[in-house]
């Protein structure tokens, strides 16, 4: 009952690579915040945050190696959040 094939064991290396990438993205987002990019500033900050979360979710939280049902869960909750944001802003902007 060890179920080795179900538990994808991840080496130390990939975690350290992802950590370095996360630090790199952090320094990019801090540097970019000092540059005036007008209305794109928020967009770029959120884009970098999204890339960082994708790294954390996929590798640190192991979603990339999990069964499909976990990805369905994740997509469903993300989708719910997007719908809530869209509906609220429709209401707020066109009120």
């Amino acid at each position: 009952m060890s179920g080795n094939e179900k538990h994808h064991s991840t080496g130390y290396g990939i975690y350290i690579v992802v950590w370095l990438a996360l630090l790199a993205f952090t320094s990019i987002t801090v540097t970019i915040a000092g540059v005036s990019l007008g209305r794109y500033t928020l967009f770029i900050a959120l884009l970098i945050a999204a890339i960082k979360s994708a790294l954390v979710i996929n590798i640190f939280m192991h979603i990339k190696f999990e069964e499909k049902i976990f990805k369905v869960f994740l997509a469903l909750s993300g989708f719910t959040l997007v719908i809530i944001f869209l509906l609220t802003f429709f209401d707020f902007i066109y009120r």
Partner: protein
Amino acid sequence: MSDHQEAAVHHVHRDDLGAKMGMWLFLFTEVLLFGGMFLVYAVYRYQYPDQFHFAAMELNTTVGTLNTIILLTSSLTVALSITALQKGNKFLSMMMIVITLLFAVMFMVNKYFEWSTKFSHGIYPGSPELLNRPNGQILFFGLYYVMTGLHGLHVLAGMILLSLMLLFIKRNKITSDDYVKLENSGLYWHLVDLIWIFLFPLFYLIQ
């Protein structure tokens, strides 16, 4: 029949996949909890863009960046702790959790100094200094205290959880072939990190 009974006694009921699934479902409720707050933030930032920018200038970007690095690194050490245990290295696994806990303490100490500086400048929810300001700034600091405060509570909860896991590993309740508790605690810790990944640019990096 005695064979059968013996088999029943030795049969350990375990469902690691189910445990992990339950943890993810719980994490989604957390995402919705913080999602609701991010929604409030988004609407008010849309309504008061200039005042949000003005108020955010008062936050200390250096402390924010430092705390980001601390949390990202603590996420790494939790992940390494699980790998170490999978490879049968109990000592390294425990060391990694201890380091994670130290990072968490560092995060909270930074938070303490950050908040007390703001308090000493007279900026805290309901303070006369803050209430004299325009609505957008009151909302910004209100959201700042509620969201980073709730996040801080999650850091504290994560610390308690990881301390328990440390104890479990020490007592061999979590072993190299039964570690779903540690994995789930790790997931919780990564979620705390994930929320901070969004809090950081939205509060500290508005120029």
